[in-house]
């Protein structure tokens, strides 16, 4: 059995880089391949998400013709090696092995070989092992890098000088103040005072300062306290051994102290960054658009790195002057300035899918550092940070950039998936609403039309046969007329609603006698109300209310019409006008069954009517929605309640200045 390419991955967020590297190789050879997923099943932080992502990656690999092997073990490194070993033992010929390498921290990383190295060493002679670095070049700090040796200033030279001077003074003081026990204060005691100074300097100022302090204190001890005093010569071998031991001890103490200090600093930095990452994670998890995500990231990442940051999302590609493909990007923030070198690094980063720019192998010479934002599924864009002049990148920076980029990519992916989902749901809802609205409107238009056409066609046949009585003729004509008016008011309502929604209607608010619309409505509704009485009450002499008379008339007509529809035939409708606490109000009360409690707050909803198909009295529903919009536009409101003694009460509220009435009365 032969197997050409084996790809080993674990749940690392960047495992796709290993798969991609293998795919590039496969493009050349076109041979069979297998993906080994060693699932750590540790359930660690973010395991579920990583696992899901890896599963998607495996699906992609399977689609590209890979055979997938899924192992669930705790020690992923050993499992990989065992698996490969087993393959060879079973006689499978693996020509290429692809394995990812991550940057590990700590002293153990220095001493222990990584899985990738082990694989390379163990199987390198049998097949071609490609180690794919999963994190940037700066991600793996060496032991010396971790000591933060680079930060050096005058302070760091002055500190050991001052410390040694202080130790010298203390030693002299001790000698001067305790002459009686002079024989007990010897070179060894004094050496300890200087050693203490070295420890303090190493803890406070780091390794280099401590080494300076060691050398300085060595010289001071040699000159002032070792015979011959006042010279750097040493007279006896014992002295030579003693002082050499001192120097050795001072250097060891300095290195240890420096390391402790560097560790503390790194831990602090790491904690600060972890907190910042967590904050960014929290902030972006609530965002629901790409723009919002980038806005939050720009602000927070800028704070975190204290450097200029920018995001580049691809727009399209075009050929540059040399005939190469060049991708154009939209920038966020849009004012980011890139020089020619930076642009080149950005292009390289995007096209090769690798870290580029400052401190990376690609795009050397740029002051920006670029990372591709990609998940296993898609490349979303490039994340860039401008490294300031003379800035020194600490070892954790590369890792921070990586995790930052991964987070941004994951967030962008989430937002995109969410938007896609919302979009399709929105379209579905809109389609449903549209068809419901259409069927509702067609019902409301067709019902009165059915009465009109029916009545007239009956009248026509009666007339043809010559049997029509005067009473029949009158009833049929009245019916047709009534329904024609109902149709008219319904069409008016639809048009008003459309115009209100499109903002076409302009409200002309002027002072009016509130009885004015009442009279117009009663006149217009007279044929429809027939025997029904509308009892008007309330003292409004001299009251002038700011309103759009025409729209108010329409609202009032809708409400009174509704009252008539929902109350027993010939039951009276009460219309009362009232001025109180800064408002003018019309109350319209019917003597019907009232409105079910659960409907009270939904009754003004435009689509409420839609839930009932054609089982309602024609033309209702929209009328109340219009009332709500019109009253709102006039600065008032419309409300509904059930009357204690039965029936519904609709109230139109208008803002009203009571003092005007007083003046008018005077």
């Amino acid at each position: 059995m032969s197997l050409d390419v084996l790809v080993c991955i674990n749940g690392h967020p960047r495992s796709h880089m290993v798969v991609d590297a293998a795919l590039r190789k496969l493009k050349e050879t076109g041979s069979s391949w297998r993906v080994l997923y060693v699932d750590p099943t540790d359930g660690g932080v973010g395991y579920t998400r990583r696992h899901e992502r890896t599963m998607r990656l495996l699906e992609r690999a399977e689609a590209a013709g890979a055979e997938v092997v899924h192992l669930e073990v705790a020690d992923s490194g050993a499992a990989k090696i065992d698996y490969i070993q087993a393959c060879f033992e079973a006689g499978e010929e693996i020509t290429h092995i692809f394995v990812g390498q991550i940057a590990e921290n700590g002293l153990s990383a220095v001493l222990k070989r990584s899985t990738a190295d082990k694989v390379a060493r163990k199987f390198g002679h049998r097949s071609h092992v490609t180690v794919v670095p999963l994190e940037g070049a700066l991600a793996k700090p060496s032991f010396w890098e971790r000591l933060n040796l680079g930060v050096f200033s005058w302070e760091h030279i002055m500190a050991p000088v001052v410390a040694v001077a202080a130790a010298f003074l203390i030693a002299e003081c001790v000698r001067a103040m305790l002459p009686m026990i002079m024989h007990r204060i010897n070179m060894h005691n004094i050496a300890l005072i200087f050693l203490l100074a070295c420890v303090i300097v190493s803890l406070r100022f780091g390794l280099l300062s401590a080494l300076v302090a060691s050398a300085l204190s060595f010289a001071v001890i040699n000159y002032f306290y070792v015979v011959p005093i006042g010279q750097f010569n040493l007279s006896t071998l014992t002295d030579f051994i003693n002082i050499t031991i001192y120097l050795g001890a001072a250097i060891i103490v300095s290195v240890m102290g420096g390391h402790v200090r560097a560790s503390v600093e790194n831990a602090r930095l790491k904690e600060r960054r972890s907190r910042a990452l967590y904050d960014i994670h929290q902030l972006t998890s609530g965002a629901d658009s790409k723009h919002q995500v980038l806005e939050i990231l720009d602000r927070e990442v800028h704070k975190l790195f204290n450097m200029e940051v920018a995001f580049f999302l691809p727009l399209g590609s075009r050929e540059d002057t040399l005939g190469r493909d060049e991708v154009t990007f939209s920038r966020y923030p849009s004012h980011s300035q890139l020089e020619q070198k930076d642009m080149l690094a950005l292009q390289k980063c995007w096209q090769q899918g690798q870290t580029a720019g400052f401190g990376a192998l690609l795009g050397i010479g740029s002051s920006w550092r670029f990372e591709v934002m990609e998940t296993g599924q898609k490349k979303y864009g490039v994340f860039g940070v401008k490294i300031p002049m003379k800035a020194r990148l600490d070892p954790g920076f590369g890792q921070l950039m990586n995790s930052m980029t991964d987070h941004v990519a994951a967030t962008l992916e989430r937002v995109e998936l969410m938007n896609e989902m919302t979009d399709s749901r929105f379209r579905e809802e809109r389609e449903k609403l549209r068809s419901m609205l259409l069927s509702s409107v067609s019902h409301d238009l067709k019902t009165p039309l059915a009465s009109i056409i029916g009545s007239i066609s009956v009248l026509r046949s009666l007339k043809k046969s010559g049997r029509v009585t005067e009473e029949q003729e009158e009833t049929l004509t009245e019916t047709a007329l009534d329904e024609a008016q109902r149709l008219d008011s319904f069409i008016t309502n639809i048009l008003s609603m459309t115009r209100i929604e499109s903002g076409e209607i302009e409200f002309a608010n002027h002072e009016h006698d509130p009885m004015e619309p009442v009279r117009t409505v009663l006149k217009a509704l007279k044929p429809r109300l027939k025997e029904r009485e509308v009892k008007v009450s309330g003292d409004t002499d001299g009251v002038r209310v700011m309103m759009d008379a025409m729209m108010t008339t329409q609202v009032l007509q809708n409400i009174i019409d509704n009252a008539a529809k929902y109350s027993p035939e010939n039951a009276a409708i009460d219309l009362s006008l009232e001025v109180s606490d800064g408002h003018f109000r019309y109350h319209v009360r019917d003597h019907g069954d009232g409105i079910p409690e659960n409907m009270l707050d939904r009754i003004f909803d435009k689509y409420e009517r839609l839930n009932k198909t054609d089982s309602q009295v024609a033309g209702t529903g929209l009328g109340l929605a219009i009332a709500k919009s019109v009253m709102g536009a006039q600065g008032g409101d419309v409300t509904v309640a059930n009357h204690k003694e039965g029936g519904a009460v609709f109230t139109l509220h208008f803002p009203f200045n009571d003092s005007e009435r007083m003046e008018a009365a005077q």
Partner: protein
Amino acid sequence: MSFLENAKILVIDDTPSIRTFLRISMTDYGAIFHEAATAGEGQSLCLSEKPDLVILDLGLPDRDGLDLLPEIVGRTKGDAPKIVVLSVRSDRKTRELAYARGASGYVTKPFIMDDLIETIEHVLH
């Protein structure tokens, strides 16, 4: 003598104006006319008056006419009334459902009286 002479007709429709002109027309043809505005009212009239023909609207305030159909057909066994549906619903699905549940005719609103009479004549013979 018209084919509707002394035929007992029940109209179940919640729109008063439609009942009005149907009443005028039907009584002119010599039919005995009953009317109901709700499904409940219509159901009890069906049992008490035993109509020959029911003209049924689908969008009734208390129940959907489509649900009422099988009940009218089922309860009055033997001499079940013929049912003509009169509705604004014009889609094929509703029409098929109405026929499947026992309707004998289907007229969509708006309609000309002559068309309804023609359908009724067809259904009754």
